[in-house]
């Protein structure tokens, strides 16, 4: 009751809710594509390297097909990302106006890194046909670095919002004496950055592998599916325990640097020692907790390795300066879902490792592949959850302890914002739906071609075509599979 009353007293402007929903919706949509933008090039390059090194035609086909998907995915990522930079101004002009020169430089780094990434990816995606094989490969090698640099910029900006520093305030509350280095490398930056980057690789790895796990379950157990599964899954499986450690240290960093956020994610009401851990459960506005699984002492132990660790509670700050009970519950659930999925993924990775260690082979169980098939989607859920935890846990602040979300919001009328939200939802649903349809269609085409070529392979001599280089005539296998189907873009051709 207390926090609700305080919020009502503060009288948040009408446009706060639609602005928040719009930002949340567009960011939640964009973040689904980020794992691919950051990590898919690297995974594709690994496959590409294998193809070149061992002259492996199957690996080359996989790398090319991933490139074809990347071409569409990257484009959608570019435009949905551009929308976010517009929204910083359209929705939160108050934040950019006052703090833009303090923390904006991270975005500057990101903009240039992204520029480099866009250039390199264009060369990579369109270089398959005419560049020399190894030249093509090496031109793309800086891509992962550019992607990491771009993530650096974005996470620097976000972690500054969580633990702002690198300035002092004058009499009017305006920032002066800006120190850029301090503003970029804020206390939470390191943990947040590595946790994020590894999450991106993990998610992309599991998702790509999941596609081939589905094929495997449907009985397509050829080398193509085996390789398409093994490489990305191995990357993800190796990173899973790493991510567990990083996530753990990130949570502890939040405990030290943003105690109130930690209290929200663990629904700790009063500052105390010997604090129990709640798995799920709901925080009521009077501080009681309904439901959930209570494990005595555990929260203190997790935070400081001993039961006597003192954990700051939500009530340590006035109600107006902390997340509401509902917000805390949201952050708590998001956090718990993320941790649960992460723990289950560790078991999956262990299963995989065990199988390699014992049999030098993939696990034989269908249940393994069923789990692997959904691991990617589960990872996307954790990405959303991690982001919800950090953003909702920071409420009501947009710049932690320095600016409230309600102070940053635009003065545009709420009606316009709601209308814009409606339009954006329609546009995004259409665009993402079409994107998914296009990718699924590509998959169907490839499957038809593969099934056709498997059927005709007996009749054809073994691979005579050079895997690389411009092709003046249509691929015999593809043409054999679908007469007149594969429309080739030749200059002046009908397309």
């Amino acid at each position, binding site marked *: 009751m207390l926090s609700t009353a305080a919020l009502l007293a503060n009288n948040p402007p009408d446009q706060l809710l639609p602005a928040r929903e719009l930002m949340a919706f567009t960011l939640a949509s964009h973040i689904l594509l980020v794992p691919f933008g950051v990590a898919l090039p690297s995974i594709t390059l690994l496959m590409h390297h294998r193809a070149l090194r061992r002259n492996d035609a199957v690996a080359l086909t996989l790398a090319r*097909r991933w490139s074809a998907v990347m*071409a*569409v995915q990257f*484009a*959608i990522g*570019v*435009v949905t*990302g551009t*929308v976010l930079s*517009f*929204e910083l*101004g*359209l929705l939160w*002009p108050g934040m950019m*106006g006052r*703090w*833009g*020169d*303090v923390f*904006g430089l991270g975005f*500057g780094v990101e*903009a*240039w890194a992204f*520029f*480099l990434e*866009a*250039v*390199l990816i*264009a*060369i990579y*995606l*369109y270089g398959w046909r*005419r*560049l020399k094989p190894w030249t093509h490969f090496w031109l793309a090698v800086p891509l992962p670095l550019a992607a990491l640099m771009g993530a650096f910029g974005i996470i620097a900006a976000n972690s500054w919002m969580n633990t702002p520093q690198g*300035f002092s305030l004058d009499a009017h509350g305006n920032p002066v*004496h*800006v120190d850029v280095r301090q503003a970029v490398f804020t206390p939470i930056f390191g943990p947040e950055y590595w946790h994020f980057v590894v999450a991106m690789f993990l998610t992309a790895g599991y998702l790509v592998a999941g596609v081939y796990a589905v094929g495997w379950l449907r009985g397509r157990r050829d080398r193509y599916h085996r390789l398409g599964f093994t490489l990305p899954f191995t990357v993800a499986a190796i990173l899973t325990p790493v991510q567990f450690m990083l996530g753990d240290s990130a949570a502890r960093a939040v405990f030290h640097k943003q105690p109130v956020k930690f209290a929200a994610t663990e629904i700790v009401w009063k500052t105390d020692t010997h604090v129990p851990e709640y798995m799920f459960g709901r925080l009521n506005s009077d501080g009681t907790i309904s439901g959930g699984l209570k494990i005595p002492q555990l929260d203190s132990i997790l935070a400081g390795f001993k039961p006597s660790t003192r954990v700051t509670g939500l009530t340590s700050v006035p109600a107006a300066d902390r997340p509401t009970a509902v917000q805390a519950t949201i952050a708590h659930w998001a956090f718990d879902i993320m941790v649960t999925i992460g723990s289950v993924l560790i078991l999956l990775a262990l299963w995989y490792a065990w199988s390699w260690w014992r049999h030098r082979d993939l696990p034989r169980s269908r249940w393994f592949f069923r789990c692997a098939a959904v691991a990617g989607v589960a990872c996307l859920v954790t990405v959303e959850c991690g982001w919800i935890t950090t953003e909702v846990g920071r409420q009501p602040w947009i710049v932690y302890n320095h600016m409230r979300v309600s102070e940053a919001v635009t*003065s*545009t*009328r709420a009606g316009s914002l709601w209308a*814009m939200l409606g339009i*954006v939802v329609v*546009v995004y649903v259409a*665009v993402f739906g*079409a*994107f998914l349809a*296009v990718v699924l269609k*590509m998959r169907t085409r490839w499957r*038809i*071609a*593969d099934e056709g070529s498997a059927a005709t392979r007996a009749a054809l001599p073994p691979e005579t075509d050079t895997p690389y280089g411009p*092709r003046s005539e249509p*691929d015999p296998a*593809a043409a054999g599979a679908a007469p007149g189907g*594969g*429309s080739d*873009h030749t*200059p*002046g*051709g009908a397309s």
Partner: protein
Amino acid sequence: MADLIAWVMVLAIAAYACAGGTDYGAGFWDLVAGGAERGKRPRWLIDHAMAPVWEVNNVWLIFVLVIMWTGFPTMFQAVFSAMWLPLALAAIGLVLRGAGFALRMPARRLAQRRIYGAMFAVSSLLTPFFLGAVLGGIASGRVEVGTTAAADAWANGTSVLAGLLAVAATAFLGAVFLCSDARRFGADDLVDYFRVRALLAFAVVAVLALIGLPVTHSDARYVWEGLTGGLGLLLVLLAAVCGLATVLLLLRRSFGWSRCTSVASVALTVGAWGFAQRPYVLPTSLTVAEAAGAAHTLRWLVIVTVVAIVLVGPAVVLLYRLDTMGELEELTDADTGAAGAPGDNL
């Protein structure tokens, strides 16, 4: 230092106007290329010419925004508050445009291509209009710190004219580049097709510029005077000379050089606007010095920019070079081993 950053911003806007403008122009010609049958060849050329470079061309916009909010936060706040609707519509236009273009490429059905193509082409027309209208509103002094969103800020003579001028200039750039792309791809019939359109677009630009003289005279007084005197005038004249040179080169079918002169004319026009607006970022209420962010940040912004130019510059040059040498082609169905699916009709 603030002046330097302001000029970096003007340069970035000029780069976006040229690179992004060429893309928007291609989209414009896609829009007016006619029905599926008649427009098949020009659309084919537009697809192939734009595909490798359009994303890079659009990243300039992000860079403009970043410089704006890091270097001139108060100006950023004022512009995005006052120009809310056109900027929001431009953002949606950007999504539809990019998604439409990217999704059209792998589509193999006519009906799908029509929808995605329409998304791409219509938003290629609207986005530059709204962005131009925003610049027009700023130039005519309608944005001040604290101005709230209102239609007047962008629905006025100067803004509409600036929007139309932006559309016409992009169409001009697009057609000039497509001329040389047509030659590069060996589509000789399209060379003349786009040559006529480039000349037409230039005529429209010239007419709009002449109409603009009386329309903006009293409405955007400060910028008008800046453009008709001193360095502003010099750059405007140079831009006009470059524009006319483009016409001559087009008539003489010298397409390599016509690209340079057309880009120069657009870039010089943006530069002239930069000179005309000095010392204001928002005429005539906010100067560069008043809007500038913290000095320490500006110094770092310069460092980041220099480092980035060293890193990104060669990569961009390589991309454009590979592209003009015809080294960049998209993967075909044969390369990825794709077959036709039931229902394909292209």
